């Protein structure tokens, strides 16, 4: 198929940036979206132009690096997939596709489609861990009894890959789905109880400090999240913070 691409180009963090139109031809429906971008970049390099910078690493939906706002949706029109898992068969011959970086004050653009998501790292550093002594005397994991339901729900929360689609999608640029998932994966397990109060307080404080917006429960994040992280995690975080604040 032949496509017109409208892509955000920005030289560096200080540049104002603008949308630029490109044409690509003979794109196969079996290609992934990133492979289509590779085709474009080869074309640009052969013509002596600067290729479009975009983040990617695993190209199989697990690292969370790829981040494109495609035709007005994070990770494009398909559900439950990252941009690297999005197939070109979702588009039609002759389509115009608009491609933009994640937009959020807390995710500044570094170049073209690449944004800085260190804010997520700093939120994790504020409490997204448990302090376990790992030097030699770790106990058997099965020695701690955990209900199947708690283990499954915690695991579901832990599948968040930190891609930032929730922030990019949210009309308020809120990071609550991400932080809710990270708080929940520990709050549900006995190992997470010890530091539970400090964890939620510190992570929420860091989230606010980074300049993410305020959740208004539109639910857009849950729909666009490639891992199907549930809004229940936000409710759980709210409960955890209330508990921690008494």
């Amino acid at each position: 198929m032949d496509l017109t691409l409208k892509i955000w180009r920005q030289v560096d963090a200080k540049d104002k940036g603008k949308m630029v139109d490109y044409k690509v031809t003979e794109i196969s429906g079996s290609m992934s979206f990133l492979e289509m971008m590779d085709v474009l970049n080869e074309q640009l390099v052969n013509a002596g132009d600067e290729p479009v910078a975009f983040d990617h690493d695993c190209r199989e939906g697990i690292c969370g690096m790829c981040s494109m706002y495609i035709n007005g949706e994070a990770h494009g029109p398909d559900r439950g997939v990252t941009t690297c898992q999005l197939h070109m068969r979702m588009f039609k011959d002759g389509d115009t596709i608009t491609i933009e970086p994640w937009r959020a004050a807390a995710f500044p653009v570094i170049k073209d489609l690449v944004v800085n998501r260190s804010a997520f790292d700093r939120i994790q550093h504020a409490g997204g861990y448990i302090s376990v002594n790992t030097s030699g005397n770790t106990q058997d994991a099965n020695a701690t009894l955990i209900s199947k339901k708690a283990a499954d729900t915690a695991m579901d929360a832990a599948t968040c890959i930190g891609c930032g689609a929730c922030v990019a999608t949210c009309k308020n640029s809120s990071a609550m789905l991400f932080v809710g998932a990270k708080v929940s994966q520990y709050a549900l397990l006995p190992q997470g109880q010890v530091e539970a109060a400090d964890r939620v307080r510190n992570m929420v404080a860091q989230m606010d400090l980074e300049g993410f917006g305020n959740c208004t429960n539109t639910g857009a994040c849950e729909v666009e999240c490639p891992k199907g992280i549930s809004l229940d995690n936000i409710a759980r975080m709210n409960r955890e913070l209330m508990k921690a604040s008494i």
Partner: protein
Amino acid sequence: MLDDLFRRIFVVTILTSYTMSGFFKSSIGRKVAMALSAFFLMFFLLQHLSINILSVLSPETFNEVSHFMGTNPLVQFVLQPILIFAVVFHFVMGFVLELRNSRARKVAYAKNNGAANSSWMSRNMIWSGMTILAFIGLHFVDFWFPEMNTKFIQQDWSGTMEGVEGLRYHHELVEKFVNPVRVGAYAFAFVLLGLHLAHGFTSAFQSMGGTAGRKKILQTIGKAYSILIPLGFITIAVYHYFNH
């Protein structure tokens, strides 16, 4: 379900008095405060509608209840100030949140497809809210200011007026709905209130941390509440328009 909610409301109220600063300065604390004011407003709407329905069913009872509400010191000096505080708090906080949220995204998307992942109601709370605010303005001019004038400036607490037999409240209410433009404006505002609540009802429970495992039932009650309450108010206005 309800006692769980009341427990949480209780906890948060206690919180307010002890650790107000820290909690309510956080993004989640603000959401909880927003939800608490909204719960109060939703409870108030239910109570207000129940009384207004009497104006259709039994004008005498409506007059008596209105006189009681209008002269009872507990209602006048405790509940009314709380209500005014809740209304003002709710819309001021609504504007504050909206402002903060718009600052969280400095560059807008060239193309954004909000309809793909969220309801129109959820994305336009500020617009439905501002319509309700305009309505509250009209409502104050229509009922509240004259009421305050009669009671506090004229010092007339009798509940009667010249040329009207018995109590004046039903007469005053019916008078207001003679004008079709006003009836239309009321109906329009209540449709937007319905849209505000169609998202707001479940949203408030979610903010309080309470939707897990009961999403379905809350959605059903929310849908019923957001349709029936505005429909009730509209029906009453239309009834008086055709029966004055």
